[in-house]
């Protein structure tokens, strides 16, 4: 595994790739970024919480026009992973309105994003149809 790096801190690689959130111990609010305190209750204690890898599409769009360097088209979605909302691409589908549906069941998947000069491969995540 030493030759792989997760695309973001909150992606855990290994045999069972999954996302991990900073969960406020006081109110249970979950965040994916580095925290100073909780946006919900201002609490300052957090624990790591594994996020479910299966969920359903609450909303999506297909971005076909973006800033230079952003690979288009791509399907962006908000996925409700058993109560935790996650933003991510829908992958391994045609980026067309016919291929993605609201409420669709999806599951987390990882894919390679390329290697750096040391041969370390960055691994990204998305959601694919369950």
């Amino acid at each position, binding site marked *: 595994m030493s030759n792989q790096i997760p695309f973001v801190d909150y992606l855990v690689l290994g045999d069972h790739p999954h996302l991990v959130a900073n969960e406020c111990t006081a109110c249970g609010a979950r965040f994916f*970024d580095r925290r100073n305190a909780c946006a919900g209750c201002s609490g300052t204690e957090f624990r790591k919480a594994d996020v479910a890898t299966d969920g359903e599409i609450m909303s999506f769009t297909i971005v076909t026009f973006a800033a230079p360097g*952003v690979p288009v088209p791509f399907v962006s979605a908000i996925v409700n992973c058993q109560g935790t909302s996650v933003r991510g691409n829908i992958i391994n589908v045609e980026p067309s309105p016919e291929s993605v549906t609201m409420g669709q069941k999806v599951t987390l998947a990882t894919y390679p994003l390329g290697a750096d000069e040391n041969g370390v491969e960055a691994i990204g995540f998305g959601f694919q149809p369950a």
Partner: protein
Amino acid sequence: MSDDVWILGIYMTKFGKYPDRDTVDLAAEAVLAALKDGGVSMKDMGVLAAGCLMDAPGIAQRIQKQIGQTGIPAYNVSNACATGATALKTAIMTVKSGEADFGLAVGVEKLAGAGLLGGAGKSGKAGASWEPQGRFGEVMETEGRIGTSGMPGTFAQIGMEYLHTYGATDFDVFAKISEKNHFHSTLNPLAAYTKAMSLDQIKNDIMIAYPNTRPMCSANCDGAAAAVVVSDAKLKTLSLEQQRRAIKVSASVLTTDPYEEACQVLPNVNTLTRNAAKIAYERAGIGPEDLDLVELHDCFATAELVHYDNLMLCEEGGAVDFFESGATWRTGKTPVNVSGGLQSKGHPIAATGIANIWEICHHLRGEAGPRQIEGAKVGLAHVIGLGSACGIHVLERSGL
């Protein structure tokens, strides 16, 4: 005597392309014309609040240097798409506090030819070793790889989420909203675009972020808008004509988004708008059913739909039926965006939050010409900036 604050003078430039004029030129045109409209001068002003999102800081002082360095306090305001509304509220608060009798607010932007907003980001360092950066520890640009945080895609998802929540499946409603606003703009000579577009034309135009095609996105353009506000006591010392044309600010409200699950994953533009609307209606003693016209923040066609609901123009979950009833066309029960809205009138960001107030005032004064909403007494202007900030102003004609 009350602590009411009134809009005494107001002006918007034509929105469009001004290759030979800079932001100070446009702002100066708006300010000088707003002062003239109110029958006052720069010497009367006790405070200046100015916004320009894309310029370097200091637009207020740069404007002063061209039209009047009177030594008054100046606020440089920046609050995303709510910048103009925030500048106006700053002037209103100063007058309300008693620190000044007259206040001036101006918003200006040059955006003609600008690309997508909020879509650009850092690029990955190809070849070098991966280095986690930022609050997510990302090793390369997240846009396009972890969904989108660009404006078109974000607002597309906001509209789609609304349809999903309330079980609607016909995505054509968004294009139909755009058809309405483009039609409305044919009556507005100050709009950046004044051509009607058919439903097919809109749907078949370039797709930006499904379901929003290009005409369903706010139009980048140049423009400025300015307003002069005055205290109730001072207004009573002015001419009858000034008092007759003055527009009462019945509510001036600014909110941000309270924490809710998912709001840091997909910005929640609903709760802060609903909160602002509730406060505004309560302060004004006016309900949504009393509104003769509304200018709301249709930065994308998908946004207009959700704000029908957020502003409580319809019952909860009923935005699609409300629109399909024809209520928001200029001939309907609650005309929305008779100016053409951001999709057709244009969206020079910092100007927008004052330009929408100009539109409402124009109707309440009975000066809107061919697009006049007959007998308009009460109107509401709404803006929202992602981040987020929501500004709502409820306006009433003087009745004199």
